């Protein structure tokens, strides 16, 4: 009788363990399937596009004939947009972060700003495009220019840069601030000479990562009016422009297979650019972490 009970519970235990093992298998397969898709995605793009990738593809203007088409104007446009966006985002984002972390305290204003930033992060990017269209392109009559595109992108990445900068500033130990204040520095002097230099690696890393996200953004720039087909490179902030993902989109939407292949080649360039920026961010972080003395 007792032996039977033991045998029954034994069987039950074995079943429970079996269920557990099967479940673990399912979890691992699911996790690996996501990574598998990533591998297929990259492999598929490499197979389609690698043979089209050469120096003339980078340096050529777009063409109606795929074998002569290049991405030079889009590459220059992307660099323009990124440089201007960085120039606008960095001071504003860091300034807002300093205000919230060092001067805002627990005031009502900083609470409103804080809630606002987290809400902005959830607004779809295309809505920023509509904002840019109404405010920069139409109201400020900038037209579909590099400047209008960069300002739109600035508003889009600003919440991310503020959040990253705040984290970097918060990570600076309080003893640094107290030492500075203790010998008579003002709060501003403390921030400028001690907190900011100590937080800079974190701020830079966060900004680079935010910009690397922005490089792939297409929708807001389409709404702002970025061109799909231009055969010149923008010379200044008031020129019309296109960007890499825009050019890729234009090639994807054509029915010919050869255009799909150069779209894949364009994607490889875009991914290489992204990888470079991410690598730079990681190296920067590691370099400063090694030399950090607190």
């Amino acid at each position, binding site marked *: 009788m007792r032996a039977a009970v033991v045998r029954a519970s034994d069987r039950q235990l074995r079943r429970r363990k079996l269920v557990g093992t099967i479940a673990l298998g399912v979890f691992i397969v699911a996790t690996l399937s996501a*990574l598998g898709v990533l591998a297929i995605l990259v492999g598929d793009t490499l197979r389609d596009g690698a043979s089209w990738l050469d120096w003339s593809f980078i340096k050529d203007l777009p063409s109606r004939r795929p074998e002569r088409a290049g991405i030079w104007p889009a590459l220059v446009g992307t660099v323009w947009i990124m440089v201007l966006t960085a120039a606008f985002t960095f*001071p504003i984002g860091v300034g807002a972060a300093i205000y919230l972390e060092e*001067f805002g305290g627990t005031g009502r204003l900083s609470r409103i700003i804080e809630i606002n*930033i987290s809400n902005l992060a959830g607004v779809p990017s295309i809505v920023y495009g509509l904002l840019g269209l109404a405010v920069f392109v139409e109201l400020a009559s900038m037209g579909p220019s590099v400047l209008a595109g960069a300002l739109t992108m600035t508003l889009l990445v600003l919440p991310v840069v503020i959040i990253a900068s705040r984290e970097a500033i918060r990570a600076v130990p309080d003893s640094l601030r107290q030492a500075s204040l203790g010998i008579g520095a003002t709060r501003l002097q403390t921030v400028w000479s001690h907190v900011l230099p100590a937080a800079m690696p974190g701020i830079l890393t966060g900004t680079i990562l935010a910009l690397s996200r922005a490089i792939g953004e297409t929708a807001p720039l389409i709404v702002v009016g970025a061109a799909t087909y231009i055969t010149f490179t923008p010379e200044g902030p008031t020129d019309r422009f296109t960007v890499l993902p825009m050019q890729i989109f234009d090639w994807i939407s054509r029915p010919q297979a050869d255009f799909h292949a150069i779209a894949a080649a364009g994607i490889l360039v875009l991914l290489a650019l992204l990888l470079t920026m991410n690598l730079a961010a990681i190296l920067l972080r590691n370099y400063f972490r090694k030399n950090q003395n607190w």
Partner: protein
Amino acid sequence: MADKAAKSAAPIGAATARPVMASRSLRGSTENRPVERIVRGALAVCGLISVATTFAIIAVLIGETLGFFAEVSPVEFFTGTVWTPTFQNPQFGVLPLVVGTLQIALFAMLVSVPIGLASAIYLAMYAPPRVRAVIKPALEILAGIPTVVYGYFALTFITPVVIKGIWSDAPVFNALSAGIAVGIMTVPMVSSLSEDALQAVPRSLRDGALALGATKFEVSTRVMVPAALSGIMASIILAFSRAIGETMIVVIAAGATPKFTFNPLESIQTMTGFIVQISLGDTPRGTIEYKTLFAVGFTLFLITLLMNVLSAWVTRRFREVYE
């Protein structure tokens, strides 16, 4: 005379009060110096730019949408099932776009919720630290890939290889293919936020259940997941909201045919897809097409706002608090 005395006394008075004045002027020359005040003001302005952005978004969307509703009845807009704003006799029923959008988001969730949750449980409960250190950032890469790349992948791989492999007569542009791609993109959102929620469950709960003889799987499904449910649900709602706002994947792979249909193997159009389609053409300010952009954008904004508020509410309402 008294006047004179007062005048001549003034410097003396000032001299005796010097210690007090000095401490005030010390403060005056540092914390409240004009430079300090100006810089502090400038920093506050930087912070306020984000608030201004929100107001500008709302003002722009509402302003143009009101202009739109001066020409189109709101009843037609919100209940109509035909969307042909660029036709000779335009009809402005937004429901086909809303249904198209929700359809994409639904398929996306069918992909990202099971995969995201499974990997979250694996990472939080099973994975050795060294495996986790590799898999977690690798999953994050999925979120960093530009959406045009997913669009390309959906059009040149998911549709021809996977979907046509199952339904050989499926059209080139269909909702299912775009939905799957959006789902893959949102996997890291579900997995990393859910994993954070699982990691936040107190160690003692897990250890207690394991000590009672429960298997790891039983601890995961009956203790950990229920305890972390608020965070998991919030992550799913956020991923849903992200899927609703996704643009390039659906523009490339789902087609541009606004259709009131629930068939996943048909070409459809989403709200974001419509905005892109109109933006690619020339739409001067003041035309009905221009206003339509903002009316659809406002609808999209409201739906995502609702989702984000819901996610915050779920987190607060269903949070399990442990001492």
